[in-house]
């Protein structure tokens, strides 16, 4: 048995010995290096670029602006083609690339950047949601060209002459009547700041152009969509665009879709040499972030605890360009009301351009920002009604088989089971052991990518070992290990007889995306089918060789076994072909279009539950997480240890935006694009008790009943911790992150309110 076992990762020991080669380790013979001159101002018209001094510097091969790039289309983007490879006459955020310098060495390119002369005329800046939405605000994009990449984004709805690039809305029932029927109406506004992914390895691309076409080594989770976009930009057939993805040093959505690849290729075309463009961490901060969100949430509830109406108004602060933002808006807003039974519902979600760093996909895809609000408010409602927060959730949460959205997959899990496990793990019903301690719980849901497509091939070689060809990118999530386990399971092979081939689009069959917690489940189905195709061929050959009926045959320990005898796979392959040869299995997963409001029926729901116990330091406001548990509904764990590890890592990332992380802007200037000033979780932040629990009911659509997880661990973190903090200090905080200062000030205000006669505390 390979599946269900904590198999050792197939990317070890390479990753523990320094032998694993990441994209930033790739050296292409003859390659030269690019560096980017980035705008110091957030919004400006470019008047003049003088490349002359930089062009004369030692080692410099070219100094290029947008006008110098040999491309059919300067613009790219998965939703709108609104982002130029280099600023095209207008600068829209501080940090935007304006000029590229290519030199023999990276140091020479870097040195020449200081010699680039750019003149500009500043334009009024809209750096915040309020500024961007104000009447008469400067409009960042006068005209928007849809990219037509996503089928579910065929109805992009920009509001003309404003900075709203997409408005998604949904309604059912009669919300006004619902509020009229409610005994209690709670309305609050929650904010979630901009945060940065910080993968340890920043974006990197190496491009080579020759008579065969384009080859690009890319730090992307989407090699196939990137290939499509590159083929369009450079006017080549798909077959002449090769995208190779080595190991990536972390990818949490920041490496989704096209980023620096088109520019790197354009530079390679100009200088007729392979070009490497490797961003620094500071540049990564100026390239990608999570959308900030302001969520005004109004909920009506009856005295008996049942939710009757919800009105959700959500503004997503996107950056200067849309990237995948419009899709983040509608995919996350789709579940904005949470996994609850709510008859009257209205959702209005707006993606808003601002003169800030571009917001892109980020683990959770907009859902963490919304779950933060709706799960915080559940506790506010519980408090106002005098209910236990867990009981209020159990009363309202959807049960298995109930619809979340009409026409979409009914709920496919048991929330009550998961919530019960989470609560039990932190001793929900036991009193807290000390003052200023509190417990919190949260329950969340996320829609997967639907519909989607994945294909895979399994090649069984002449000695019975197998190579898996899959377009899934290994970025640390353990996909290669889990997918290898599926092949090993189906073909009765030991894991070390299965190898996953390098991820490159010229060789691997099509895969839509390494994203949305889909690879083990949906690529997993393609892999399962490819392996079963090989299995089928082995049994056919075995039946002939062993003169047995097929039903009498089984595969065991690398052998075809029948009552009449057995053959090794190698013997079977050799006998079949006479000489050499290999068996080739093919498998495809193709999602159904369905009739759901977003256009694709969910193959599964990704649900995340968590519970936390915290202690708040009354003097400093510092929050210490004593106990934290996350519960994922995984259906079936292919590799339980790696699944738990995904959840643990996700939850820690969630603890980051809950307690520490935020990109701080002063006007249009990002003040902290560096790890010195941007605080991510470190080892000493590990809660004293920290675990993840997997609920396995075998009820998923994937191999052996698997469902996707991994984002699930991060989505409920902020509200679970916030709810614990609120019970510890008696104050509700509605803005993240809950830094010591913010917690202390909230706590101090509450103290003053409670004891107005006392003087200020010292």
């Amino acid at each position, binding site marked *: 048995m390979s599946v269900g076992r*904590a198999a*050792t*990762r197939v*990317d*070890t*020991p*390479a*990753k*523990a*010995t*320094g*032998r*694993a*080669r*990441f994209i*930033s*380790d790739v050296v292409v013979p003859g390659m030269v290096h690019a560096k980017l001159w980035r705008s110091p101002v957030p919004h400006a018209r470019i008047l003049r670029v003088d490349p002359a001094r930089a062009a004369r510097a030692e080692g410099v091969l070219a100094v290029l602006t947008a006008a110098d790039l040999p491309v059919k289309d300067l613009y790219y983007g998965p939703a709108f083609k609104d982002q130029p490879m280099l600023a095209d006459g207008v600068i829209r955020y501080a940090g935007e690339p304006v000029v590229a310098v290519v030199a023999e060495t990276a140091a020479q390119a870097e040195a020449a950047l200081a010699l680039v002369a750019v003149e500009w005329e500043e334009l009024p800046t809209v750096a915040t949601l309020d500024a961007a939405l104000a009447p008469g605000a400067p409009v960042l994009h006068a005209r928007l060209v849809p990219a037509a990449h996503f089928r579910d984004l065929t109805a992009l709805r920009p509001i003309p002459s404003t900075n709203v690039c997409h408005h998604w809305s949904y309604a059912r029932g009669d919300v006004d009547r619902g509020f009229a029927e409610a005994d209690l109406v709670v309305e609050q506004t929650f904010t979630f700041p901009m945060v940065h*992914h*910080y*993968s*340890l*390895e*920043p974006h990197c691309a190496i491009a080579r152009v020759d008579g065969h076409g384009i080859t690009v080594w890319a730090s992307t989770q989407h090699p196939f969509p990137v290939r499509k976009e590159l083929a369009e930009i450079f006017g080549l057939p798909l077959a002449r665009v090769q995208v190779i993805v080595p*190991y*990536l*040093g*972390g*990818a*949490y959505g920041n490496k989704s879709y096209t980023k620096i690849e088109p520019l790197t290729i354009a530079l390679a075309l100009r200088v007729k040499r392979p070009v490497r463009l490797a961003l*620094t*961490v*500071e540049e990564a901060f100026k390239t990608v972030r999570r959308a900030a969100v302001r969520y005004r949430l109004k909920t009506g509830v009856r005295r008996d605890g049942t939710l009757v109406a919800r009105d959700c108004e959500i503004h997503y602060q996107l950056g200067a360009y849309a990237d995948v933002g419009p899709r983040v808006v509608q995919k996350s807003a789709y579940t904005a009301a949470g996994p609850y039974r709510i008859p009257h519902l209205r959702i209005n979600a707006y993606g808003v351009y601002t003169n800030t760093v571009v917001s892109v996909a980020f683990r959770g895809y907009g859902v963490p920002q919304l779950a933060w609000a709706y799960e915080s408010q559940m506790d506010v409602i519980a408090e106002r009604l005098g209910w236990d927060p867990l009981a209020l959730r159990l009363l309202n949460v959807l049960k298995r088989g109930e619809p979340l959205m009409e026409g979409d997959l009914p709920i496919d899990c048991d929330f009550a089971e998961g919530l019960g496990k989470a609560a039990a793990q932190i001793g929900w019903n036991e009193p807290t052991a000390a003052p200023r301690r509190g417990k919190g719980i949260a329950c969340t849901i996320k829609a997967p990518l639907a519909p989607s497509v994945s294909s895979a091939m399994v090649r069984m070689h002449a000695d019975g070992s197998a190579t898996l060809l899959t377009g899934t990118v290994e*970025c*640390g*999530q*353990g996909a290669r290990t889990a997918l290898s386990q599926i092949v090993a399971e189906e073909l009765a092979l030991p894991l070390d007889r299965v190898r996953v081939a390098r991820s490159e689009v010229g060789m691997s069959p099509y895969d839509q995306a390494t994203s949305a917690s889909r690879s083990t489940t949906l690529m997993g189905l393609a892999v399962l089918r490819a392996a079963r195709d090989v299995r089928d061929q082995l049994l056919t050959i075995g039946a002939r060789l062993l003169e047995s009926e097929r039903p009498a045959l089984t595969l065991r320990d690398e052998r075809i076994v029948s009552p009449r005898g057995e053959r090794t796979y190698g013997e079977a392959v050799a006998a079949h072909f006479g000489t050499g040869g290999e068996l080739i299995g093919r498998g495809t997963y193709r999602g159904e279009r369905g009739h759901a409001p977003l256009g694709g029926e969910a193959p599964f729901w990704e649900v995340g539950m968590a519970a936390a116990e915290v202690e708040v330091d009354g003097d400093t406001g510092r929050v210490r997480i004593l106990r934290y548990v996350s519960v994922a509904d995984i259906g079936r764990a292919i590799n339980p*240890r*790696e699944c738990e*590890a*995904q959840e*643990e*890592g*996700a*939850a*820690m*990332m969630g603890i980051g935006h809950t307690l520490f992380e935020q990109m701080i802007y002063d006007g249009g200037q990002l003040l902290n694009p*560096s*790890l*010195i000033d941007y605080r*991510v*979780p*470190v*080892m*000493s*932040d*590990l809660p004293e008790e*920290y*675990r993840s629990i997997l609920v396995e009911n075998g009820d998923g659509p994937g191999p052996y009943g698997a469902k996707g997880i991994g984002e699930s661990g991060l989505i409920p973190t902020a509200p679970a911790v916030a709810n614990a903090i609120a019970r510890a200090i008696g104050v509700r905080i509605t803005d993240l992150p809950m830094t010591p200062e913010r917690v202390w000030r909230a706590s101090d205000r509450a103290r003053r309110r409670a004891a107005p006669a006392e003087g200020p505390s010292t």
Partner: protein
Amino acid sequence: MNAIPMSVTVNGEAHALTVPPHETLIECLRDRLGLLGVKKSCDVQVCGACTVLVDDRPVSACTVLAFEARGKHVRTIEGLAHGDDLHPVQEAFVEHGALQCGFCTPGMIMATVALLAENPSPTADEVKHYMRGNICRCTGYKRIVEAILAASERLATGPRTTDGG
């Protein structure tokens, strides 16, 4: 700028090099000596991905100048295993699943080697405190702490106790 002649021992091998004064140790190790297991991330001595040992002390190779290693012994992740025979810390990281993307892992393992040389039997709290300078964005750290504690036990009882530092 005058280049500086220097001799340095890297993973037990003596090198005579001539380096520009501004060359950092990570540039020297990666670009000059091809030791690509040394990883560059934050570049400001916060993340620990570039941790190497200089005379058994952990340093961030991104913010140390190459010539500062003159006459010293530098040890990188490449110098830890003997062929396919992994160092006990590496074994523990593999067995405990204490890595995901793996980019922080070389620095994390080198910092662990330094920790266990200084403090062969750390408590979990001592591990968390010592290792604050090594950031992992994937694992959530839990399994790294477990691996470090397991490596500590292994080094205390195993045959290769002299190889811990």
